[in-house]
């Protein structure tokens, strides 16, 4: 009896060992993928970890370690600086969240791993992403024929209106293709003092992404088409900067954009009536139960180009587990991830998810403008030197808005400085 049980146990043990040994050889050891993501979106770390539980269900051998990087006031710039510091400091993540603003820098520094090989070898991982995602949005992440990420979120720039203030002024949301005259008319009617409270018509976009959207609509841009020269001092660009300066200094339609004051909050509280942003204010609208808001295309100065920026997850070349890292990165473009992560803070790149999430959020009133623009949208200009150029841009914009300086002179200086950066000096 005793002997029998011993033999039996040994037998079972041997079989078990053989089986597990065998499967152990087939299955890889569990690996941990360190993912860095920018804090400032609407989802907390705990919620993000919960989203990844879904991934672990089908990929039990990959563990995702979520690291949130706090980005101070200046958004992407600070975030990329932090990622670079992590890499320099020797604790680089395996994958990280990168927006259009940074992707060329990552590629030019040789930090990003092309995903084409992995995608080809693992059609199961990519699924229907490339049929569901509008190919326009993917363009920024295709560089020199390589795919450096599958975009999962994007934003355009549209004009947001506080509809209550419009109604009080006897105005309606303007029609598509509203021009400069309309804009000035709206501004004049929306600038007033109500019960001793100052009300401004509009917030000037004091950041590169928002500002270039205005330039685009006047046939202008920060850089030329192949992003080798700065074109800020060309007449069409000067015209827009002049308009901004006048709106702040001459007409007083707009408050001076203090970087410490949250312009979105001012739209909510009724201190301003209009502002140009993407979909990221929706989270703040929701938190404040603010529903008196509608969107429309930016003013058509000479044309109506909708600017956009998209973002995706990049695999760092330095990762020791490229395959697993790629699998996580690509899963972050799945419907499940996008739906749960980008509910309020950006436009989902997958049409199927956008169609579900955007109406569910309810605000702003004519939200269909968001995904619709994917077809015509043009990416914001972000060369490898984006971070430095954006800093120079911000500096000159604040100079022009704050002082009665000559717009042309300042933009000449800005152009010279940005050209020097592009020339690699």
């Amino acid at each position, binding site marked *: 009896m005793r002997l029998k049980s011993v033999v039996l146990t040994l037998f079972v043990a041997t079989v078990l060992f053989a089986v597990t040994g065998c499967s152990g050889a087939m299955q890889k050891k569990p690996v941990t993928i360190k993912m860095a993501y920018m804090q400032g979106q609407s989802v907390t770390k705990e919620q993000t970890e919960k989203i990844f539980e879904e991934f672990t269900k089908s990929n039990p051998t990959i563990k995702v370690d979520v690291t949130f990087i706090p980005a101070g*006031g*200046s958004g992407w*710039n600070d975030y990329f*600086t932090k990622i*670079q*510091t992590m*890499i*320099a400091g020797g604790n680089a993540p395996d994958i990280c969240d990168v927006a259009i603003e940074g992707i060329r820098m990552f590629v030019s*520094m040789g930090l990003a791993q092309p995903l084409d090989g992995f995608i080809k070898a693992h059609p199961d991982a990519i699924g229907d992403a490339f049929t569901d995602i509008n190919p326009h949005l993917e363009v920024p992440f295709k560089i020199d024929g390589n795919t450096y990420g599958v975009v999962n979120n994007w934003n355009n720039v549209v004009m947001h209106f506080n509809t209550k203030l419009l109604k009080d002024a006897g105005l309606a949301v303007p029609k598509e293709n509203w021009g400069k005259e309309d804009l000035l008319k709206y501004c004049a009617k929306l600038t007033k003092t109500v019960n001793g409270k*100052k009300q*401004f018509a509009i917030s000037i976009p004091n950041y590169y992404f928002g500002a270039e959207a205005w330039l685009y609509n006047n046939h202008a841009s920060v850089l030329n088409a192949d992003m080798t020269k700065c074109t800020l001092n060309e007449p069409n660009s000067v015209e827009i900067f002049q308009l901004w300066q006048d709106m702040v200094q001459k007409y007083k339609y707009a*408050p*001076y954009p*203090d*970087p*410490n*004051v949250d312009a979105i909050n*001012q739209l909510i509280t009724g*201190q301003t009536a209009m502002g140009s942003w993407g979909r990221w204010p929706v989270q703040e609208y929701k938190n404040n139960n603010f529903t008196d808001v509608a969107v429309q295309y930016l003013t058509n100065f000479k044309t109506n180009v909708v600017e956009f920026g998209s973002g995706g997850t990049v695999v760092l070349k330095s990762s020791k587990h490229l395959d697993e890292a790629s699998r996580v990165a690509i899963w972050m473009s799945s419907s499940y991830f996008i739906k749960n992560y980008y509910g309020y803070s950006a436009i989902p790149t997958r049409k199927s998810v956008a169609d579900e999430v955007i109406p569910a959020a309810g605000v702003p009133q004519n939200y269909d403008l968001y995904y619709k623009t994917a077809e015509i949208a043009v990416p914001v200009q972000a060369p490898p030197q984006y*971070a*430095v150029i954006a*800093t120079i841009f*911000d*500096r*000159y914009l*604040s*100079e022009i*808005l*704050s*002082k009665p300086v000559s717009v042309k002179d300042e933009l000449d200086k800005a152009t010279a400085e940005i050209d020097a950066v592009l020339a690699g000096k």
Partner: protein
Amino acid sequence: MGSFVAGNLRKHRHFRDNLTGYLFILPALLTFLVFIGGPIVASVFFLDFCKYNILTPPVYVGLRNFLKLFSDPMSSTVFLNTFKFVAILVPLHVVIGLLLALGVCRKIASPLKYYYRTAIYFPVVVTVSAVTIIWTYFFNFDFGVINYFLNLVGIQSVPWLKSGDWALVAVAIFSVWKGVGSSFIFFVIGLQNIPDSYMEAAKIDGANWFHLFFKIKLPLLTPTMFLVLTTILINCFQIFDEPFLITNGGPGTSTRTIALQIYEQAFRSYDMGYASSFAAVLFAIVLAITVIQFSFQKKWVNYDYE
């Protein structure tokens, strides 16, 4: 024989004193060498002659960083701005700190004294990024608290953070509010250390307020003044938090200081070598001023009463 033993003992004692002396200063000395002494040598004699972006090893480039520094118009801007801050802030901190200390060190009820002291010193203690949030709302041009009250009394809104010159003033006001408590507290200590007998004697001699202050208090306070001046000068030369948090160096470049320039070159552009050349020049300036200060201190600092 006896003296021989004593001598030996003394020698032994000397040896032990040397050893224990070194052991006692070892932790401080080690951290000093690793985090202050070594770095300053590396900054001044090595990094500023290199091109270095952290990811690849440093390359010796000779004086190139300094040539760039002296030809870049941004350099003169940041040096000028820093000098402006020093010129505004050092006298303000010293004079206001002293006046407040005199205002508190009087014969008044001690709860009142405690209240004044706490009110003035408390901003020193709190986190700078917490109070800059408050002050930027105070300074806001269109919605700010200060301009609201100015308008009430019929004064036009002041472009605190909008205009380059006013931004300098705004940062200075904040800096005094936040930091004058430290010079204040040093002066309070200095005033309290003046023996009452000195004052009593002078009063009996019929000295008036003016005399008491200029002939007795002020000379006795000169050592405190010297310490305050030294530390404030250095703090002002490296002013970073205030312009970084309130104006981010703007508008334009009007509040961009040497420290902001170093931060931006080093940790945004990753040009460690170029940033180090600014660090070296900053060090040279502070060193020169400190040497001058120390060589002049005999002329005005009074150590007779110690």
